[in-house]
């Protein structure tokens, strides 16, 4: 049984369908990430799950009970807490801010004091306890907002881009708190992010969102290695996306024709199928001489541009198939790659992801 389910949920704001037929399940004790570009509808979805807004159609259940925003069902809504993307703090001390959720639940001062002091220590905020929260920096404020939501120990904690405006160090601290919360068994977290690596570090399950729909849902490994749509592929780092057509097939080994060239791929789709070929730039090998290797696809290309970054270098190749590759900067230097040079690009067949066109 899922802790929370979202069924056939849509949201219309004015003329626009911000969310279209969303289905989602939250497993208890896991971190779920909603991953997508800005404007995909992540915040809208999280606000509906957080019972701050109502969906136009569809519904949400928690422990198989249907819940609705607006209804003053404080028992149920107190199981959910949300930290907004741009957190606001109350115009009072940090201590009072963190105590808010406990106070409105009518807990005794002794319990409140114990819990608040404990979480402030845990978050390293004890030195700001009596400082007005509005005087804090953005990062500290974000931590106050997180502590304030976590101190009430909601069963479901919703975080909208919790590290979007933070520096690397604070961002790392916040990620630790997120993991601690879930792994210590306090509750389940659903969070949005547009940071691919963060999704990879934290999530158990990933939903990829695009233009108001969830284009793929699954555990981390599946989504990262087997994207099901071109949008997902592009978003999770398959920078090379080429369109072609299956022209030949022997068992599961198919030949895809892309303009003049052909590429061997693994696919069981029938001959004649139009497909998108997705390829991560780090799965392309560059050689000066024609390699004698197991890679089935090797092309002669001309280097168009080389951008040295640390530790990887991005090489743009121009042949009949334009390719973007990512190799270590040290090998780029060893090979003395310069624009205009002719090189061989090899692609492992197993690294190619084939997505049939809809």
């Amino acid at each position, binding site marked *: 049984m899922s802790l929370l389910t979202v069924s056939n949920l849509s949201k219309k704001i004015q003329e626009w369908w911000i969310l279209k037929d969303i289905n989602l399940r939250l497993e208890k004790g896991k971190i779920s990430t909603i991953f997508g570009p800005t404007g995909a509808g992540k915040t809208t979805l999280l*606000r509906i799950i*957080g019972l701050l807004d109502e969906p136009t159609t569809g519904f949400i259940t928690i422990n198989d009970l249907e819940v609705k925003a607006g209804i003053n069902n404080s028992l149920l809504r107190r199981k959910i807490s949300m930290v907004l993307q741009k957190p606001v703090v109350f115009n009072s001390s940090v201590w009072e801010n963190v105590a*808010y959720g406990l106070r409105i639940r009518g807990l005794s001062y002794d319990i409140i004091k114990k819990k608040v002091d404990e979480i402030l220590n845990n978050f390293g905020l004890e030195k700001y306890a009596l400082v*007005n929260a509005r*005087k804090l920096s953005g990062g500290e404020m974000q931590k106050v907002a997180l502590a304030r939501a976590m101190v*009430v120990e909601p069963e479901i904690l919703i975080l909208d881009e919790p590290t979007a405006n933070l520096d690397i160090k604070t961002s790392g601290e916040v990620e630790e708190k997120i993991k601690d919360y879930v792994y210590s068994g306090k509750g389940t977290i659903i969070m949005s992010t547009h940071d691919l690596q963060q999704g990879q570090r934290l999530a158990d399950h990933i939903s990829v969102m695009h233009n108001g729909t969830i284009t793929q849902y699954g555990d981390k490994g599946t989504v990262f290695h087997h994207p099901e749509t071109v949008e997902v592929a592009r978003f999770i780092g398959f920078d090379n996306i080429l369109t072609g057509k299956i022209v030949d097939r022997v068992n599961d080994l198919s030949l895809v024709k892309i303009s003049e060239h052909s590429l061997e791929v693994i696919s069981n789709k029938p001959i004649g199928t139009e497909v998108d070929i997705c390829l991560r730039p780090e799965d392309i090998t560059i050689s000066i001489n024609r390699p004698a290797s197991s890679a089935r696809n090797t092309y002669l290309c001309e280097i168009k541009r080389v951008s040295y970054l640390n530790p990887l270098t991005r090489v743009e190749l121009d042949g009949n198939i334009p390719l973007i590759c990512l190799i270590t900067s040290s090998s780029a230097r060893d090979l003395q790659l310069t624009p205009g040079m002719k090189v061989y690009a090899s692609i492992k067949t197993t690294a190619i992801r084939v997505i049939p066109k809809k």
Partner: protein
Amino acid sequence: MTEIWQGFLKAVELIITLDREVMEIAFRSLGISLSATLIASVLCLPLGGILQFYSFTGKRAVISLIQTFYSVPTVLVGLFVFLLFSRSGPLGGLNLLFTPTIMVLGQAILITPVLIGLTISALSGVDKSLKDTALSLGATNTQAIITIIKEARFSIISAILLAFGRAISEVGCVIMVGGNIRGFTRVLTTAIALETQRGEIELSLALGLILLLISLTVNLLLNIYQQRKV
């Protein structure tokens, strides 16, 4: 020029010696305007809250109307209350005309639009996502609204002080409904108007100084309070 200077010195003397009539008028003025402000606040703060937090048809029109009444002439409020409570008026039977009670009522009516309007501005000045934050931390709707009102406390207190300032300094309404009866309904502003006409410059100046002092105190409080606002 010497006449004014003499008057000024006499006025200071009246204040320092705590002249009985001067003190009596000053305290009556304070009492009436404070009562009016208190009554109006008790009514207007929740009303402002309702107007801010609940939507209904015609809400914009109501708010525009309230804002129009910010600068309603005090004599018009006086006239309205006078007609309502005069012998032949609908509430004439209450026999309230020319009593301190009706002066309180008149001033309360006078400052109602300003108080409601400024309460709405104070509440709408609070970050919109604050209510969401309160709700998502488990607050009920009522608790969330109380949180927002607390958040707007500095602006709301400023609004109350401002309303008190308007009440204590107005003359049109209290002179019409109070009648400026010596020892009964005479307040600072009406006394100044009368004594100046009668040529009692010292008394006018003394009362004027006190009125000025009250205004300055209110503004000082306002300043101190707003500086505490982080």
